[in-house]
């Protein structure tokens, strides 16, 4: 059990977190609560399996996963921005919708209530990674979704802090009235930010489906909420959020290896991200301040 194996495993667990959490940062910095990352991921995972299966290419799966995440996110955006519906209510409902829709279409497309047939992925890292100790890392690094995942964080930081769009996004999330006064099209910026969050989270789901070469019912298993936890624990800053993602992934990796050794019960390791988030929210470690206009739909 070398360091490289642990690193490769941490990386593989962290990629969907990094993707979804980057999306979460975009959405929340624009003032829209990212409660439905889980739903975007699940939709992305299902669409990716569907695309890869019928298109017989992981690239088509990637395209489908990204599009599905974006579409579902736009539904959230229309409901909360155009119709000013409550973000928490719609966010929760989007997650329920994604679970229901993926289950329904799993029956419709593959006549199964549990999983899709095997689909093409980018690499067979699943099989190789377990047996060949040293090659896990290289295999992972040649996976295009992993590369996108690793680039997502610096790109989000770049867009958010170094581009006019990023400045507008932050303005819209902090003080929409002031942004309006300066001629910023608040609604359009918010639509863009939410669409990006859906695309990134959809990619996170895509990674899961292609990595496991199939879609299984509710396969995201709360990863969207761990990503949200990382966003809050990382105080809405892309770099800190990325560190949180890697931290959570490392804890999971250790858990997998400690399980046989009769260490701490796995359930307690599962709690870590959520406990840390609550501690951070309570302001017990440092100051935690969300974007000022988070959750407020009015312009």
């Amino acid at each position, binding site marked *: 059990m070398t360091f490289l194996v642990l690193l490769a495993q941490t990386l593989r667990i962290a990629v969907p977190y990094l993707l979804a959490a980057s999306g979460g940062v975009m959405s929340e910095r624009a003032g829209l609560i990212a409660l439905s990352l889980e739903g975007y991921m699940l939709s992305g995972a299902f669409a990716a399996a569907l695309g890869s299966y019928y298109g017989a290419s992981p690239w088509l799966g990637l395209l489908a996963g990204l599009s599905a995440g974006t579409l579902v996110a736009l539904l959230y955006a229309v409901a909360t921005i155009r119709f000013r519906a*409550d973000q*928490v209510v719609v966010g*929760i409902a989007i997650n329920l*919708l994604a679970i*229901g829709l993926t289950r*329904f279409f799993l029956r*419709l497309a593959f006549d199964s209530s549990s999983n899709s047939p095997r689909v093409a992925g980018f690499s067979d890292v699943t099989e190789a990674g377990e047996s060949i100790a040293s090659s896990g890392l290289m295999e992972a690094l040649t996976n295009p979704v992993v590369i996108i995942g690793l680039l997502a964080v610096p790109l989000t930081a770049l867009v958010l802090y170094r581009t006019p769009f990023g400045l507008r996004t932050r303005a819209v999330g902090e003080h929409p009235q002031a942004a309006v006064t300066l001629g910023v099209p608040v609604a359009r910026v918010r639509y863009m930010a939410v669409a990006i969050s859906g695309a990134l989270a959809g990619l996170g789901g895509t990674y899961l489906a292609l990595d496991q070469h199939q879609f299984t019912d509710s396969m995201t298993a709360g990863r969207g909420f761990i990503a949200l936890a990382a966003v809050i624990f990382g105080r809405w800053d892309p770099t800190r959020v990325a560190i949180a993602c890697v931290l959570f992934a490392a804890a999971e990796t250790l858990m997998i290896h400690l399980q046989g050794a009769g260490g701490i019960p796995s*359930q307690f390791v599962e*709690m870590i991200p959520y406990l840390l*988030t609550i501690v951070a929210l309570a302001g017990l470690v440092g100051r935690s301040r969300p974007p000022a206009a988070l959750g407020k739909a009015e312009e």
Partner: protein
Amino acid sequence: MTADTATSAPVATALSWRVRLEESLLPPIAALLIALVVGDILILSFGQSPAAVYRILIEGTWGNAYGIGQVLYKATTLTFTGLAVALGIRAGVFNIGAESQLAAGGFAAAAVGLLFPAALPALVAAPLLIVAAAVGGGVVGAVPGALKARFGASEVIVTIMLNFIVLAFLNWIVSSRLHVPETLHTPEINTGEIPRLAAFADVFRGSAANLTILLAIAVTVAVWWYLFRTRAGYELRAVGLQPEAAEYGGVSVPRVWLKAMTISGALAGLGGVNYVLGYKHYYEEGFAAGSGFVGIAVALVGRNHPLGVVVAALLFATLSQGGLAVNALVPKQMVEVLQAVVIIAVATVVPEVRRAVRSVRRA
């Protein structure tokens, strides 16, 4: 973070009863119509006739005693989680944690029921176990309440995170200490079972419906009385409508938040009684999975009014049971989609419909 639908409801009290009736009936009807259209599309995509599917859905639920019993059973759990969410929203706090509060309530009832000697009469044990369920849920609800009151931590996020923490903890305690080998549930409680309806009317044989229904009715009336007929309930609603004004009026807003979250958690916890005392007599992981989230839908459609909650609980229970009835024709998951569509439709359409009603009236 209160739903717009919640805060604007009491404005209508100044208007005539006709306006109030239209405003409370039109939005759910509009939402149901939208759900029906989506349902039609899903049914047609599966190559079935919507009319046939809907007929079976009604026949399989309200068409026979067993179906009615099942609907009543599910509606009982949903009434508790719906009341929990509704009471929270009335106080301006959004409880997303009914899911884990319900589980904690069920677990507490089962755990205490295992401690009681079998010789204890059920009539004595049952009330104590009901209190245990309320306490179990209330403790889980009090945590986000206290964190919001003391540190201003968003109860939405804390309750979501607590869902995972509490469910993981219960999973650990049941799987490592309390489970019956080869199962995911605890042993059966020694005493305190609540009789099923079938014990009084044989037609209900086989259905899970039990006398917890009476508890649900009593609690619904109690919540209504508390909210609209007591000083504490008035303060609670004042905080939900306008916390600054309530504070100025001498109400301690943080204390009301803590109280509301605790009561909300206790109400959700009481839902565990339905399964643990009334149905299976043990705690099992995921015994009512999803009921906490559907409780949000129930509160919304029921417009955060106890009576509305009961009606909405019956509606969602019918959908849920109906899904099983139509499963031979279309996947029962259609119902999960429709539940989500109803929530989104109510959340988006309601303000639109109300605005439209108002503008028509003004013209």
